[in-house]
């Protein structure tokens, strides 16, 4: 299978934006402050390169490409989950139950992995790429719920750090848009625009984080009352 020019352009754009975020973080001396965000972006770039190499060498329908795709996807979803927990740690950092929260996150991750494993075994599949696919899908769903809860906590705790608020909101927007595009594939598979929408939407997260890192300093603050939209 050959990639079309539009798909190739979106793929390159996404990889360039992921790299741009890491470069911006280093330039703004925030690499270690947002270590897991940077780790996720670096791993995304590595996953893109690995997938590209497999696609070029073995083709789209090969087992090698399929395994690379699903295992890198599962790895990225786990790192995205860890990233989300790191944002939780920052929001709840000054509270006493931060340690318990980390423990709960590990239990939830292991529980999701166990549930995914059970689903795969029950369906009679071998624990191969099916597990990776199931784990990614379930962690994505857990991620949406956790991001929504985190946003609630940001509002409740009157979080004022602009960078943190915008990173949580970008992540929430990214998860929602992704979930909507996956659901749209199932509801209306004949809509061809969805094929391009998912990778294009994947570019939104690094772009929004680049803007946040470039536009605001770590000391920037905003009034939490201005974030609540009540018509």
């Amino acid at each position, binding site marked *: 299978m050959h990639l079309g020019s539009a798909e190739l352009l979106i793929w390159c754009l996404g990889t360039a934006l992921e790299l741009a975020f890491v470069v911006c973080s280093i330039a703004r001396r925030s690499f270690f402050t947002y270590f897991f965000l940077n780790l996720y972006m670096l791993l995304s770039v590595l996953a893109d390169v690995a997938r590209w190499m497999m696609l070029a060498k073995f083709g789209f329908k090969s087992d090698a490409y399929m395994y690379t795709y699903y295992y890198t996807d599962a790895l990225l979803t786990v790192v995205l989950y860890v990233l989300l927990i790191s944002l939780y740690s920052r929001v709840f950092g000054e509270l006493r139950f931060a340690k318990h929260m980390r423990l709960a996150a590990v239990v939830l991750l292991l529980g999701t992995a166990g549930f995914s494993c059970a689903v795969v075994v029950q369906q009679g599949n071998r624990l191969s790429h099916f597990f990776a696919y199931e784990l990614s899908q379930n962690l994505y769903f857990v991620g*949406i719920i956790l991001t*929504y809860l985190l*946003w609630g906590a940001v509002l409740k705790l009157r979080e004022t750090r*602009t960078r943190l*608020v*915008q990173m949580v*909101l*970008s992540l*929430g*927007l990214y998860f*929602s*848009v992704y*979930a*909507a595009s*996956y*659901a*749209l594939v*199932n*509801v209306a598979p004949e809509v061809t625009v969805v094929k391009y929408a998912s990778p294009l939407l994947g570019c939104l997260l690094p*772009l*929004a984080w680049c*803007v946040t890192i*470039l*536009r*605001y300093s770590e000391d*920037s603050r*905003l*009034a939490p009352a*201005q*974030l609540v*939209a*009540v*018509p």
Partner: protein
Amino acid sequence: MMAAIILVVSLVTMMMFFVSYCRSLMASSASHALSEEVRDVTGIQSRASSRDFTRVMQLLQLCPDRPSDRMGLQAVQLYYSFLSAAQSSISRIAPSFASWSETERASCAYFVAVVLDKRISLSREMLAQQAES
């Protein structure tokens, strides 16, 4: 059926996060006091009105671009268009939405005026640097 429910829920949360994201962008510029020059040019004194948005956007096209402003500006433009479209349809059913939407659109106009202010400052700095060299 399940996919349709997920689609609807995702669209609702997407809308909620989008509105909050735009509000966070605008909130960060709300404390910025406009320069005398921008107040004269735009006609905005202490508070902007929703009608100022289009005029300030036109003025913005005349200034050199700042890449770091681009995405925020596009998000707020999209938010303004969404509010304008929603105001003409929803305000008939829910009158309280009209006044809320008006305040939001005024905040969009003020955000754009702050971007204009920053672009003018940047242009002035660039001219000063050129004159020095």
